[in-house]
């Protein structure tokens, strides 16, 4: 009789205890594009998520890494199915579009302490979360591109675009002064802005007079001439040239790169001497492009409270500092006074470049605007259309996109 009682108690314990424990634990899915071959993803899964789970025993975080290509499609189709992520690390250029689609949770409304977090971050990255008078996320990391050059073949970096162009005369056969992967915004906007041009007016209402303005046209013409003369690589017209391979091989003298370049370089080419300088200046100054990611909560998340708790964690100094160590530059202004940043070997140049860097048009139709701009520049680089003609046509199309048709 006694043994029976003990047995049933044990059985009950086995059934009831795990069940009650399981009831409280909530799993949230975190979709992101942290690079799996660089140390970012490892920091997330080995350090940060365990840190969060230890502090929040009732929340489990499932990390779901995606490649950047196709991530936008994956997010949109998952949203259509009403499934997918609770928390997403989203490229800043997609935030307005996703907010307009109604996929993102309005954090300025749903998160009671939102303002406290908004005040702690840089205003530029924060602004990429704004849509229609509300905020649909918080910035997670920021970055920009600086001129990464090879001191072995380019002893002094060019300070101006003219200096860069002058170096072309001494370029040996088979080498390129500069290379990039195409005519998408991330690649050609630094040149357009540094020339003093732009895509739209500051109010983002009008492209005519800007994208087909004198300075933008001159910038596109400059890249086209440099590619034609063999000074810039034909990676610009989509040859698929491996820019990093050429850089480390000594045939590509310089390129624009973000801070994630360093961890990869240190692990794969530890002995390579890297030089970094500001984007060469033109009439508009040394202007580069702001990149980065926001942290957002899916509007259809079944666990919004737990998801927002994870968002709060990403805004902590621990998270931001750990990620900064693997190339994800922090968005917390207070952290810059931390000795880690004061003594950092390469973040200085990126922080300096960020002073003048600009953000790509924060508009729900950005993806389409970028296609129009890139295709127009592509026609010019291939010599199939004059720069003015191509940019005039682009202005008309972008005006239509801005008008919402």
């Amino acid at each position, binding site marked *: 009789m006694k043994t029976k009682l003990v047995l049933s108690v044990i059985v009950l314990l086995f059934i009831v205890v795990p069940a009650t424990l399981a009831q409280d634990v909530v799993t949230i899915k975190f979709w992101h594009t942290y690079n799996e071959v660089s140390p970012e993803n490892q920091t997330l899964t080995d350090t940060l998520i365990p840190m969060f789970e230890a502090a929040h025993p009732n929340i489990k975080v499932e990390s779901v890494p995606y490649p950047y290509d196709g991530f936008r499609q994956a997010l949109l189709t998952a949203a259509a199915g009403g499934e997918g992520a609770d928390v997403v690390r989203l490229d800043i250029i997609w935030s307005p579009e996703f907010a307009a689609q*109604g996929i993102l949770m309005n954090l300025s409304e749903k998160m009671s302490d939102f303002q406290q977090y908004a005040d702690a971050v840089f205003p530029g990255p924060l602004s990429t979360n704004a849509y229609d008078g509300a905020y649909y996320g918080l910035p997670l990391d920021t970055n920009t591109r600086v001129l990464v050059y090879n001191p072995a073949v380019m002893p002094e970096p060019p300070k101006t675009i003219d200096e860069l162009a002058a170096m072309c005369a001494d370029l040996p056969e088979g080498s390129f002064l500069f290379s990039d992967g195409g005519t998408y915004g991330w690649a050609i906007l630094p040149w357009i802005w540094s020339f003093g041009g732009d895509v739209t007016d500051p109010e983002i209402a009008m492209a005519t007079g800007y994208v087909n303005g004198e300075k933008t046209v001159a910038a596109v013409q400059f890249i086209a001439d440099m590619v034609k003369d063999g000074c810039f690589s034909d990676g610009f017209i*989509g040859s698929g040239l491996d820019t990093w391979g050429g850089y480390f091989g000594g045939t590509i003298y310089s390129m624009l790169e973000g801070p994630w370049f360093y961890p990869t370089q240190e692990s794969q080419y530890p002995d390579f001497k890297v030089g970094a300088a500001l984007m060469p200046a033109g009439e508009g100054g040394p202007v580069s492009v702001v990149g980065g990611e926001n942290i957002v909560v899916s509007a259809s998340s079944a666990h919004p409270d737990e998801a927002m708790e994870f968002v709060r964690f990403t805004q902590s100094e621990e998270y931001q500092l750990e990620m900064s160590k693997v190339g994800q530059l922090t968005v917390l202004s207070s952290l810059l006074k931390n000795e880690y940043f004061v003594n950092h070997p390469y973040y200085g140049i990126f922080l300096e470049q960020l002073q003048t860097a600009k953000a790509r048009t924060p508009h729900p139709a950005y993806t389409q605007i970028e296609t129009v701009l890139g295709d127009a520049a592509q026609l010019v680089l291939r010599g199939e259309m004059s720069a003015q003609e191509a940019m005039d046509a682009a202005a008309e199309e972008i005006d239509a996109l801005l008008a919402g048709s």
Partner: protein
Amino acid sequence: MGTNTTIAAARRQRTPSRDRAKPYYRWYVPYVFLIPGLVLYLLWTVYPLFYQLYISFFDWKIIPGQESTFVGFANYQTAFADKTFWLAMSNTVTYAIITVIGQMIAGFAVAVLVNRVLVGRRFFRTVYYLPVVTSWVVVSFLFIYLFSPGNSGLINYILTQIGVIKEPISWMANSSTAWVAIYSLGIWKGLGWSMVIFLAALQGIPAELYEAAAIDGTNEWQRLLHITMPLIRRTILFVFVALMIGGFQVFLSVLLITGGGPLHRTEVALTYMFDRSFGQLKFGYGAALSYILAVVIVVVSVTQTRLFGRRGQDVEY
């Protein structure tokens, strides 16, 4: 009591058991077995087929809570005026013609050769068939590496070494050279399939026919043209129609190798449909495009079968 009674008893016993077997032949039995497959087919093929037709008449929104508006034939009208779509369609047709002819000639040639191999026939058959069962993603990346620009690409390296070209080619920078990579992948990956079918047909031809023809003093070429070809005529037709349908559905290789670029010039029907649907979220338009493609495929297949499939011309043996 004798043998007769035993047999009679056995008969008596056997007859009812035969009657009892009858219920198993009731009319509905085959349908019961067909239902699972039929349900899956209706649910996963027929229903989406009609649902997509429905979508194609809307400005379709995929996000829950957003309203889709009925637009009638507007998507079809846009498609007929869309130059990029018609470029994509003509690219698709060109791709189908070039790769189908390529696969059939190469597949037939390899089949004839493999058929003559006395030792290791199975080895060659497997080797040539291997690309067919390999994932499109894997072989597409393989071809991206083969056709890399500069001297690091294997194709460029070989061509410059043997002196065919002086400067390495940036294959993906121009549509004309990008097609070389896409076509050669299509032919290389598919030739094993037509080879296996042709090989089976070749092995079905009685050897006596060739022996008799050889005694009559024919040469190899005459035997190929007048014996082999007519006898495998139906196989050639089958391979042709099947490959054409496959050719029209080219997608992954183009998406991965060029992504339709540069400037949409290597776009094919399905990559363009994919871009409009998942890139620009115009799902109604994408649905209309795929219906136009489906109509074209049906017309082409029916025409092919009509043209080449006339009965009465078959040689009996």
